[in-house]
């Protein structure tokens, strides 16, 4: 089986600083894959490199059998890949409704209202707040909005960058629950970047550990959770 998304020997630089040192990652259709690592390990860079900003300097990124390594960002994002960026980045002065519509940019209006119903079904809080300005939502609601906005383009692959950032454990559980639900019912493929290793590994089918821009470990979620070095580095003292 060929992977839906695959990265082979991908490197990325910020100026002279090498942020990714030849990364190999594969995400199969219907999987939840998580990428864990400490602050500054290059998790978000990896996510952004998939989106083409920064571009990968070496290596190949293929999506659905096609090379997307050198495509401009907006063309990558139009190939049924959607991203919920780090720090949520919702549009603070636009209403929840408008925020969601932005996610369906360039898609037919009839489809948008149908998808919006599905998003509201997944996050009922957003329906209650649909006329409210995005910036007045709580952190958790903003995260739901960011995910909902990403879902509006009906993606096959959802890239989630640190959805648990700054949220209360209860809210994190709620959001992770929604991701699991989505994956189970619609077969949505998810690549999840997380610092919250425990929750992420419990959710994911498979995981990768990123240290200083290189993958050091890979395995199933349960497998990684059981490894003593993971427990020592990312779990104990943390969660």
């Amino acid at each position, binding site marked *: 089986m060929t992977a839906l998304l695959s990265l082979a020997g991908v490197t990325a630089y910020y100026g002279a600083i090498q942020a990714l040192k030849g990364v190999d990652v594969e995400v199969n259709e219907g999987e939840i894959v998580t990428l864990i690592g400490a602050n500054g390990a290059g998790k978000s860079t990896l996510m952004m490199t998939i*989106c083409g*900003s920064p571009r990968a300097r070496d290596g190949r990124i293929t999506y659905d059998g096609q090379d997307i390594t050198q495509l401009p*960002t*907006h*063309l990558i*994002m*139009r190939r049924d890949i*959607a*991203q919920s*960026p780090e720090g949520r*980045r*919702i*549009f*603070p*002065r*636009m*209403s929840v*409704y*408008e925020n969601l*519509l*932005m*996610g369906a*940019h*360039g898609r037919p209006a009839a489809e948008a209202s149908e998808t919006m119903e599905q998003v509201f079904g997944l996050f009922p809080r957003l329906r209650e707040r*649909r*006329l409210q*300005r995005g*910036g*007045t939502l709580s952190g958790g609601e903003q995260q739901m909005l960011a995910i909902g*906005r*990403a879902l509006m*383009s009906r993606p096959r692959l959802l890239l989630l960058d640190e959805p648990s950032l700054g949220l209360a454990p209860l809210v994190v559980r709620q959001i992770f629950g929604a991701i699991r639900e989505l994956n189970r019912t619609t077969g949505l493929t998810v690549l999840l970047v997380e610092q919250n290793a425990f929750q992420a590994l419990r959710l994911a089918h498979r995981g990768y550990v990123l240290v200083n821009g290189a993958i050091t470990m890979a395995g199933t979620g349960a497998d990684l959770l059981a490894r003593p070095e993971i427990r020592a580095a990312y779990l104990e003292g943390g969660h």
Partner: protein
Amino acid sequence: MSGTALRSPAARALRDAFLSALVALGIFGVMVGLRTDPGARSLVLSWHPVPVAVAVAIVFFGRLALSGWRIARPAGTAAPRRLAEGMTHAGRYVAPVFLILALTLPLYAGRYYLDLGILVLTYVMLGWGLNIVVGLAGLLDLGYVAFYAVGAYTFAIAATTFGLGFWTCLPLAGLFAAIFGVLLGFPVLRLRGDYLAIVTLAFGEIVRVVILNWVSLTGGPNGISGIPRPTLFGLTFLADGGPGSFADYFGIEPNITQRVIFLFYVILAMALLTNWVSLRLRRLPLGRAWEALREDEVACRSLGINVTVTKLTAFSIGATFGGFAGAFFATRQAFISPESFTFIESAIVLAIVVLGGLGSQLGVALAALVMIGGSEMLRGIIILGVDLVEYRMLLFGIALVVVMVLRPRGLVSGRTPSVSLGRPREISAELVAEGRG
């Protein structure tokens, strides 16, 4: 400073007021106090202490009153909110009233007020055009006058060299201005905020300097004269009537006011067109993409929005309206020169947009009315031997400062969502970020 903290509020207020008065003395002492009058052989410098004293006293007591108000109203209290909301909600009724007043103005207003109306409407149109770039797309453009100039010169050159009329040239002027908008847009795609402002400022100056020096095409500092007036379906508005004129066709006395009324309706229609297009665009995916771009460029990219195209369309559509206004300016004046397209024009239009509340159509119209119409009203008001119109720039400045202190988000600063379920709910000014729409 621990010493300051220990002093009583009253002493601090006095000290503040004194310092403000000192600054005022420094400014007004030169600007108001010293005046040059034509003497027998050269200019004679004369000293006028009374206006200076009055200005300094106003600043002193004004500052004292402001401090007193601050003491009475603890920090952190919201600005007079009822007033703010009232103004925002009043918009629904104010706009139609203004429209009716504008439509019927020629019925009761004389030549002077019609001319003033034309001037105000030109700035309203420029404000609305710039609002697309600054208010909606959030791209700070300090060189908007360049498009105004391009529009004016396109029409003037096409009319004087090829003998084309106003209505033929109008789309041409818009098109050329749009091309210049794209020309400006390309190099500044990666810039934001301050950097963008500097480059657009330079762009405005470059266009003016090129016009000034390209004598063979633009006439350089002499400008272009003899620009034809617009016609109504081929009917002219000549002062002496004659065959083919409006007066001749309808069998009425030729009167110069007829042309002024016609020009007034032309600019009113053009301004309303600008307004209508902006309002329509806001509801389209393109307009929403502009607003999203203003909010967060990174998020836009992640949603598959082509940021390059979005920015360029904002620049070019904004520029198109600047070009239309420029063509109108040329036909109204019948003479243009580079002097009409200096940086101060860009600054005034930007001030109108900021004062009005970025992104607010009604606010921009009100601000243009107050700034252009209001400052013209000062003409002839003589206080202590000085004509107030000479100080209009000073009053502009004061008005800007006052509005920014009391209503940091502009006169009409709410934001109506472009899509809503049922009745649109205004997003209160309190929730709109400062200095943005």
